């Protein structure tokens, strides 16, 4: 279904959804930083910059409770978190790189173990994607086979038009349901041309070649020179739309507490630290190698997909300027 929606009507749609009790999550300014979060009204929406954290947090929160425990005398009572309580959500203004990573995450969260926390949020969320009209030199979605107008992962996709408003296309039943319930806010396409799309400057990676090199080079001196500068923080993994490692921690006292699921990152020394004190990834290059291997080899081996959508956040915010696009491009030339 192809339609048109004006900027005014898009805001009216969001306000209506909020008034109906729907949770509308969109990029907005949070203490000076653009981040996804629930809107209280459409005025707060910020659509002109890529949010600092990716849209994965709408399905895979950076911290969530999965259980609580309480001890009274000798009796221990456990309370499970029931995912049925998660709110119906519309996720608006998701850039193609963020949206495209979500179906990639579906694969791992519904593999041998079905992660009900992720899947229930996924079921209850409608994703409204938005094409990009500007890119910087850290953007590289085109290099991994996506594009600034790729609707992968979006239920409904908006493309900004010359003279204002958006071309709107539905891709799933969820997207159609959202449009049909608010049909009067949408109009037939008015024939305006789309604004020129962003043009990320990176050349396309030969992902097959990259994988072929990775297959045979678990041990390679290149890893040392690539990652010698890595300081071992989790910024890349935490900002990444596709990284999905988590850590389960129990927090509280012996009387009561909660079991929580937090984001984790393979850059941390603690990530593979054994209880014995042994650490198979004892130095940073081994940890950084895992990041590249997981994205361009292991995930491909298991699910036939690349775990990177080229948003460029890890490049922009790496404290020491590690550039995954440069690294992968170099590997593809080996």
């Amino acid at each position, binding site marked *: 279904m192809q339609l048109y929606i004006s900027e005014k009507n898009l805001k009216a749609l969001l306000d209506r959804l909020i008034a109906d009790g729907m949770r509308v999550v969109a990029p907005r300014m*949070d*203490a*000076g*930083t653009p*981040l996804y979060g629930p809107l209280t009204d459409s005025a707060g929406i910020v659509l002109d910059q890529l949010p*600092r*954290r990716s849209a994965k947090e709408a399905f895979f929160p*950076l*911290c969530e409770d999965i259980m609580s425990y309480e001890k009274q005398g000798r009796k221990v009572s456990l309370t499970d978190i029931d995912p049925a309580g998660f709110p119906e959500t519309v996720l608006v203004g998701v850039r193609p790189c963020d949206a495209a990573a979500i179906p990639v995450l579906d694969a791992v969260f519904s593999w041998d173990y079905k992660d009900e926390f992720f899947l229930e949020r996924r079921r209850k969320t409608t994703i409204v994607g938005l094409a990009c009209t500007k890119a*910087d*030199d*850290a953007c590289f979605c085109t290099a991994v086979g996506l594009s600034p107008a790729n609707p992968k992962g979006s239920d409904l996709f908006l493309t900004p038009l010359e003279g204002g408003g958006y071309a709107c296309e539905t891709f799933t039943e969820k997207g159609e349901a959202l449009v049909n319930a608010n049909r009067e806010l949408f109009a037939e396409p008015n024939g305006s041309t789309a604004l020129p799309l962003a043009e990320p400057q990176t050349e396309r990676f030969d992902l097959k070649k990259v994988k072929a090199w990775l297959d045979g080079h678990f041990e390679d001196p290149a890893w*040392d020179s690539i*990652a*010698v*500068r*890595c*300081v*071992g*923080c*989790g*910024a890349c*993994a*935490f*900002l990444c739309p596709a990284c999905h490692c988590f*850590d389960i*921690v129990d*927090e509280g006292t012996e009387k009561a507490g909660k079991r*929580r699921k*937090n*984001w984790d*990152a393979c850059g*941390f020394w*603690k990530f593979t630290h054994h209880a014995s004190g042994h650490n198979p990834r*004892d*130095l*940073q*290059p081994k940890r950084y190698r895992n990041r590249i291997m997981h994205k361009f080899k292991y995930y491909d081996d298991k699910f036939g997909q690349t775990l990177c959508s080229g948003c460029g*956040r890890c*490049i922009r*915010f790496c*404290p*020491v*300027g*590690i*550039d995954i*696009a*440069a690294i992968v491009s170099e590997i593809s030339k080996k």
Partner: protein
Amino acid sequence: MHDNPIDTSIYAAVTEAIQGEARRILSEGHVAAVVGYAAARRKGSAQPVVVTRADDAGKLIFSAACVNNLAVYLTKARKEIPKSGKIGIVVKGCDLKALVGLMGESQLKREELYLIGVPCAGVLASTIQPDTALTAGTIAPKCRECDAHLPTGCDFVPARQPVTPELEKHYSAEIARLEAMTPAERWAYWKGQFKKCIKCYACRQVCPFCFCEQCLCDRNKPQMVETTPRPAGNFAWHIVRAMHLAGRCAGCAECERVCPMDIPLNLLNRKMAKELKELYDYEAGFEVREKGPLATYDEKDDQSFIK
């Protein structure tokens, strides 16, 4: 006013001098490696590099995008850089203060270092694209109140004089603004900032003074600081971090630069530095001192707050 350009024309000559000196000390065998900056893929960008061969000395650069404090690579926490033999390091004045602090804390020995000082007019703020020109608007906040444009006590400093215009001070103004607030307003301000924290620990990992082999905040028996990135755990982490750096931090502002959530972490560090200066007349980073203000005492210290 904000577009006022800052003269960085000396950086080309500085780059050349760094390359020449690195080539010399590597080829003459004075050092095993030189830690410096090299150009990276993005236009105008730079990243840390370890050069071990004289032939590679040409990779070294200095520009307004050379923001890192390389001192972090010399600490015991970074096992990746070989520590055998003397190490050369490119340092700005602000980075040098961290090295001075590390020497005071017996983490480094002066005789094991070859310091290549950089006359610096300032570097870019963290949110600015690396190819942007340096202006009064794009300069890093720490450079606005820099008192170390020319590093002292180095083994080599290119003979150039940076032009350094007087800029409006950032941290002192922010501290004054916060101090004028009520406790409730300050609480609300920091709560809003800390809430964004994702516990990526970039602030800790880039800090030259966070060299503990195992951070208190990574321990869970006993767990002093919650590891979850919830508002409560975030608040505790940032208070602990600021307290552990009090009297040690010399203001390289790496924590604030790398924070992907834009939390003004150096504001806490500067506030603590200001208080310790007022209380004990101590400033970090100017001379190698064995003990910082919180590792020593004076019998006549102020105790007006103790009943």
